[in-house]
């Protein structure tokens, strides 16, 4: 037998195989070890692994819910309530963080010394304080200092802010679906209009004022439904009602609970600092020559921004900003600290406490976040690809 040959063989193929096999075996061993322990632990406590509990009655209430829910509904429904609340606060947070972040990012580049400095200090202050402290501050300190229900801060008699929350008018629609269809229809029209305009521009060099027509469509079509589609909108304004000698409440309208306000405030103000830095880096990343070249072929300032700077800056801005959106969504789990009923508080908190099913519930919660994260990153990758430079 030729030992030399064997050794050579080992060094080429098996050298790659051995660490891999070791890794896999190690993983499998850990899983087996954990499973055995978990089984014996659950056996001791008289519970068995399974997701059947999801269809049981939850018998706990949730303070804030977007869908119909009370204690008689199932755990699965409670999970859904928590998930929707998480999505709600993330969506609000992302919306305001983007607006605030873009504004501050642009303000940091302002020629105006005062504006640039204030924007810089905003970023330095809010970026360097832990998010959880900011949430605590808004919830326990700032919003608790609001007046009682009786002396609410009054915004033009339609909306009221007090220590119990913010009361805003409720939209009462008739034939709401027709209204929505008209908006969808407007978007479809705009899509075709944009295609047509692009075609005209490429072929004949004609400029069609797409933006103005689009704005007209998106306002005009839904407006038409009011006139001829039988759609109508009325507002239910919250009203102060006296329950007893000292107890007042607002009836009607929509009440936005202080937990949601403070969470959305803190999330958007904190994340805005990071988005602002991304925006700033993106705009700075577009080389000066591009702007000068655009100016030299006679584009106006607005055109330079829209056609030359922004498309290039967006390419730099979007990937890190996606990351910030993801972070915001994950950070919304801090809701649990101030008892905003998000998925962590409702499901990994209350439901877990009641059922004792730690493994199932924590896995579901983590998987939910994982899929939220993955879906946002898949969407953003797609968008990135669309925005990427198409080199010929």
């Amino acid at each position, binding site marked *: 037998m030729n030992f030399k040959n064997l050794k050579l063989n080992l060094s080429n193929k098996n050298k790659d195989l051995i660490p*891999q096999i070791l890794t*896999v075996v190690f993983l499998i061993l850990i899983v087996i070890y954990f499973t055995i322990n978990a089984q014996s632990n659950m056996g001791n406590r008289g519970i068995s692994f399974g997701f059947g509990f999801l269809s049981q009655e939850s018998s706990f209430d949730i303070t804030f819910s977007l869908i119909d829910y009370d204690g008689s509904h199932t755990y699965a429904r409670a999970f859904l309530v928590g998930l929707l609340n998480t999505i709600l606060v993330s969506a609000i947070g992302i919306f305001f963080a983007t607006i605030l972040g873009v504004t501050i990012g642009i303000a940091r580049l302002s020629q*105006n010394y005062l504006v640039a400095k204030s924007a810089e200090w905003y970023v330095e202050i809010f970026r360097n304080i832990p998010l959880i402290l900011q949430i605590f501050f808004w919830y326990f*300190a700032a919003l608790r200092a609001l007046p009682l229900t009786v002396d609410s801060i009054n915004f033009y008699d339609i909306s009221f802010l007090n220590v119990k929350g913010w009361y805003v008018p409720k939209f009462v629609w008739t034939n709401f679906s027709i209204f929505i269809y008209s908006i969808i229809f407007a978007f479809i029209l705009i899509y075709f209009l944009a295609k047509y305009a692009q075609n005209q521009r490429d072929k004949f060099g004609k400029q069609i004022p797409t933006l103005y027509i689009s704005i007209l469509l998106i306002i005009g079509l839904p407006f038409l439904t009011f006139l001829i589609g039988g759609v109508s909108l009325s507002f239910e304004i919250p009203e102060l009602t006296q329950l007893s000698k000292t107890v007042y409440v607002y009836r009607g309208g929509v009440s936005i609970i202080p937990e949601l306000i403070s969470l959305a405030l803190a999330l958007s103000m904190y994340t805005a600092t990071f988005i602002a830095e991304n925006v700033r880096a993106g705009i700075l990343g577009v080389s000066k020559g591009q702007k000068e070249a655009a100016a030299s072929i006679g584009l106006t300032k607005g055109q330079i921004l829209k056609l030359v700077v922004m498309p290039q800056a967006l390419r730099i801005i979007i990937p890190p900003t996606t990351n910030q959106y993801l972070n915001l969504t994950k950070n919304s789990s801090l809701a649990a600290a101030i008892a905003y009923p998000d998925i962590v508080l409702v499901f990994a908190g209350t439901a877990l406490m009641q059922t004792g099913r730690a493994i199932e519930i924590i896995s579901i919660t983590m998987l939910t976040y994982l899929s939220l994260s993955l879906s946002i990153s898949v969407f953003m990758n797609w968008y990135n690809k669309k925005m990427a430079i198409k080199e010929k």
Partner: protein
Amino acid sequence: MNLSILKSDKKNLNSFIAVGSTLIFIGFIDIILSSFFSTNITSFLPDKISYLTPLLFGLFGLYLIRIEFSGNKLLDKVNTNFNSSNFNALLTLLVIFSLIKYIPPLLNWFVFDANFAGNTKEDCTSGGACWVFVKVWLNRFVYGLYPDSEQWRINTAFITLFLLVGGSFFVPARFKKYIIIFLLFIYPIIGLKLISGGDFGLKYVETGAWGGLSLTFIVSAFALILCFPIGTILALGRRSKLPAIRYTSIGFIELWRGVPLITVLFMSAVMFPMFLPDGTYVDKLIRVLIAITLFEAAYMAEVVRGGLQALPKGQYEAAKSLGMGYWKMHFLIILPQALKLVIPGIANTFLALVKDTPLIFVVGLLELAGMVNLAKTNPKWLGMAMEGYVFAGLVFWVICYVMSRYSQNLEKKLKTER
């Protein structure tokens, strides 16, 4: 009507400056009077217009003094930096006016009306911040529930650490290596033993009593030291040619990066004990440290991977051509260069780690923010939330600001070095 008389130009420079500055001055007088002396000099106007008069005066004044290339250096500087267009003028005025309006009340609350003397809530009478609260609770904010008589142990541990770190800058280069190895591998054990006690005649202090700012430092320092090697190995794994190792690393990294830290901490608190043999008890602090370490290791792995990818391929090829194997190549050639590249990234991860430590309240460990939460619910000190959070925020802000400044400087320095 011909408005061209209002268009400022160089010819009547002095008169424009005189009229413009007078108007701006009136605007300032108006806002100062209305915010400090609550007198409104334009009260004869309708409410809403009178509210806006300082702005209008200021805007018009700034419009008049907007003269390009006036030859007056100060004026030119003002115009380019604060007054380049009507919009910029408006922004300038808004910023200055809101500073005038809101900074003094804030300062009053913070310093001038604040209470520093006394020992109880009742000593706070002047309406400003009640810093007595912070003064009384300061010991708890720093040391948590650690017994007073034993606090010298925490002090000793931290002072030794600072001395060692500071000393490592001054000793000759050949001893530096040993000090760093000592700091990374041996000192953590000594420090931990000193604080937890139990042997050498030191009283045992259970981890539940640890807390406050010192716990923030302990958790973040340990998590950083531990997550660094794990993160490096994961980064190497992710770039490995071997599929089983690569996919394991990717899965591990993406799993931790996809979930929020709070669920990981929940997991360590309620799910992790289920996976251990019945009756094993792992200390709360250890469980938290494991959770945070694994979580941060995933982020660290991505930072290190960035450094590995930034290295030119020639470095790998040169190392291989010298006959180096995988480990030799990475430890002697690749990692030293890659890690140097990502020092700012490591600093940023550490920053994020420090900002994440308050989350350990979910398992019942109270560092600074948690101690404030505890203190403000004390019946004797109700209503002190604002002072507590402002204090905690300030402390965290100073720590994080200094660190971020340091990492920015480092980034600049490393950029110029290359």
